[in-house]
Every structure is written in C-alpha cells, then in structure tokens.
C-alpha cells in the first residue's frame, strides 16, 4: 500500500467521523416540522409560501417548475449560462471551433452490407425509435407545467436522441442533422431567449424577469396566465441550450475534438 493511500484513509476517516458526529444533532429524517420545512415562530417559511401561494400566483400545478422558472428565474438563467460556459470550455480545450470551414461532403446514407445482421437490427430499431424519443422530448418540454419535466429534462432527452443516431450509424449522420454551426447557434439562441424575456420585462418598466407585465403582449387574461406562458418560453430557451451543449459535448469527446470517426 502506498503512503498516500494511508494518509487518504486517515483524512477520510477524520472527515467522516466529524460528519457522523454532527449528524446526530440533525432533525430526524422525514420530519415535517424540521426547520427547513416548517415556519420558524414569528416568520413565514419561504417553502410554505411556495406550496400554498404558488398556484394562485402563477396558475402552474407543478410547483417545481413555477419556483424554477419564476421565483428563482435569475438563478436558473445563470445555471444555463454555466452549461453554456462548460460547452465553450470543451471547445477551447479540445480545439474544434472553426477547425473546418468548408461544408461537409454530403455522403449517401450508409447502406447495409449483406449479412451484417447487427447493423440491420440495431439501425432499423433506432430509426423507429428516434422520432418517438424526439416527440417525447418535446412533450416533456411543453407539458412541464402539469407533470414532471421541463427544459432541462426535455433538452437532455432531445440530445440523447441525436446521440442514439450517432451510435447507431456514425457521428457524421448525427452531424448532418445538427451540424457544428447549428448547435453553436442553437446554444446562443437559447440563452438569448431567456435573457430576452427578462429584458422585455425591463422595457415594460418592471423588474428583470417579472413576467406579470407581459400580459398586454401575450394577450392573456390576467397576469397569472402571462407568468405561466412566459415560463413556457423560458423553458424552451433552456431546452435549446441544453440540447445543443449536451450533443456538442458528446460529439467532441467521442472524436477527440475532430468531429470525425467518433465512437
């Protein structure tokens, strides 16, 4: 056993011991009256406010979506920016942006060789499944107000459909559907949609991302429905960025940044 391994065990045991000791003072698991869940006497708890008032404010049954895109919209916007920055970091590290400027050669759809059973079975199933996955991803994005889902989940599923295309035939086939230029554009457009909603609120003389004032533009009855519809727009922006960056990460990682002959 190496010396560093012994030191590691000592450090881990000390840290874990302190944490295990601290855990014994915690409120018990699943306690509805714990300080994180219930109001401290004399003040109202923010999570209780979200549960009781969120539907009246925004007309969205899924509390997580309403908190994510409305009450904490500023936080979510910069989480999206972090994902965008991660994508940019991967382009910078693996060095692929602007690597080739001429358009990719339009090849024929790779045809199956006789006797290549695996390619036929896997390729046909993926061809059947990919449209279903993409429709399901759009359903997840759009139905996120009423059931679990939203921009992050739908974007990841949409990116996974492109990854399945890349895995079932090759990376070129996926890049023909969503090329390098297009996914960069898509990532930028997503963040611009999100920030655009905020700036639009500012133009109408209110705070950044205060969707209630968008009612005359969105032609809804009441500011609550305006908030609901703006949340949908914001989620679409998030989904654009997440789709583009997740697929870009796969495309760059699998081909060492060359975007050719990947996994």
């Amino acid at each position, binding site marked *: 056993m190496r010396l560093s391994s012994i030191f590691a065990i000592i450090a881990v045991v000390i840290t874990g011991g302190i944490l295990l000791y601290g855990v014994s003072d915690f409120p018990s698991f699943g306690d509805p009256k714990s300080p994180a869940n219930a109001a401290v006497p004399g003040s109202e708890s923010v999570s209780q406010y979200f549960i009781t008032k969120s539907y009246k404010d925004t007309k969205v049954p899924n509390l997580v979506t309403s908190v994510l895109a409305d009450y904490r919209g500023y936080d979510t916007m910069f989480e999206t920016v972090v994902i965008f920055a991660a994508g940019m970091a991967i382009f910078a590290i693996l060095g692929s942006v602007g690597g080739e400027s001429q358009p990719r050669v339009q090849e024929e759809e790779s045809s199956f060789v006789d006797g290549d059973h*695996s390619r036929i079975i896997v390729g046909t199933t*993926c061809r059947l499944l990919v449209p279903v*996955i993409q429709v399901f991803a759009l359903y*997840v994005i759009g139905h996120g107000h009423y059931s*679990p889902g939203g921009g992050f989940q739908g974007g990841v*599923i949409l990116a996974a459909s492109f990854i*399945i295309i890349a*895995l079932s035939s090759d990376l070129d086939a996926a890049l023909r559907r969503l090329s390098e230029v297009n996914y960069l554009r898509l990532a930028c457009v997503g963040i611009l949609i999100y920030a655009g909603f905020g700036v639009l609120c500012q133009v109408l003389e209110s705070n950044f991302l205060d969707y209630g004032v968008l009612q005359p533009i969105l032609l809804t009855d009441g500011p609550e429905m305006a908030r609901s519809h703006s949340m949908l727009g914001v989620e679409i922006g998030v989904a654009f960025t997440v789709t583009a960056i997740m697929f870009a990460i796969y495309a760059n990682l699998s081909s060492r940044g060359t975007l050719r002959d990947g*996994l």
Partner: protein
Amino acid sequence: MTFDHFSIGVGLALFVFMLPAMWRMSVGPTALDRIVAVNVIGTKTAVLLVVIGVVFHRVEMFVDFALAYALLNFTGSLAAARFLHKTKSSSEIFEEEGGAES
C-alpha cells in the same frame, strides 16, 4: 391487506431479484457479463418506477419517466457494444501483461 401493501411487496421482490444481477456485476467474469447485468437492472428500474407511482397513488406522474427509461435504457448498452466492436478484443488487452480481468 390492501393493494398498497401488495405493491410494496412486489417492489421488495423486485429488489431481491436485483441482487443476483448485482452479484453477477461484481464477479464478472468478463466485461460483457457486467453490461448484461446493467441492462437487467435498468429494465427492473423502469418497472419499479411504476410500482412507486402506484404506491404514491400518482401513476400519471411517474409513468413519464418510466417511459424515459424504457426509451433511453439501451443507449449505454449500444455504446458499450460499439466500443467492443471498434477496439481490439478484451482478452488481448487484459492478458498481454499477465493481469487478470477483475
């Protein structure tokens, strides 16, 4: 005994049947055996999500991500299969230096 207790019992049975897959995952002997075990546990996960939804009385919410699992579960297996197609065979990788694959 209500149907909830029955559902919890079914869920516990599924967890118990996950144990052989976990065992196969830990002992191998080849990487492919482990990947098959991953596949088995993935299928059981999709079923267990439906079971949890029945216990919560909110199946219409939980069925969505059971669907996501059913659709996306084969991505990992596909990637592993493609990996094994494109690299040299694992017996060569793990036996040229005398190290056993474990």
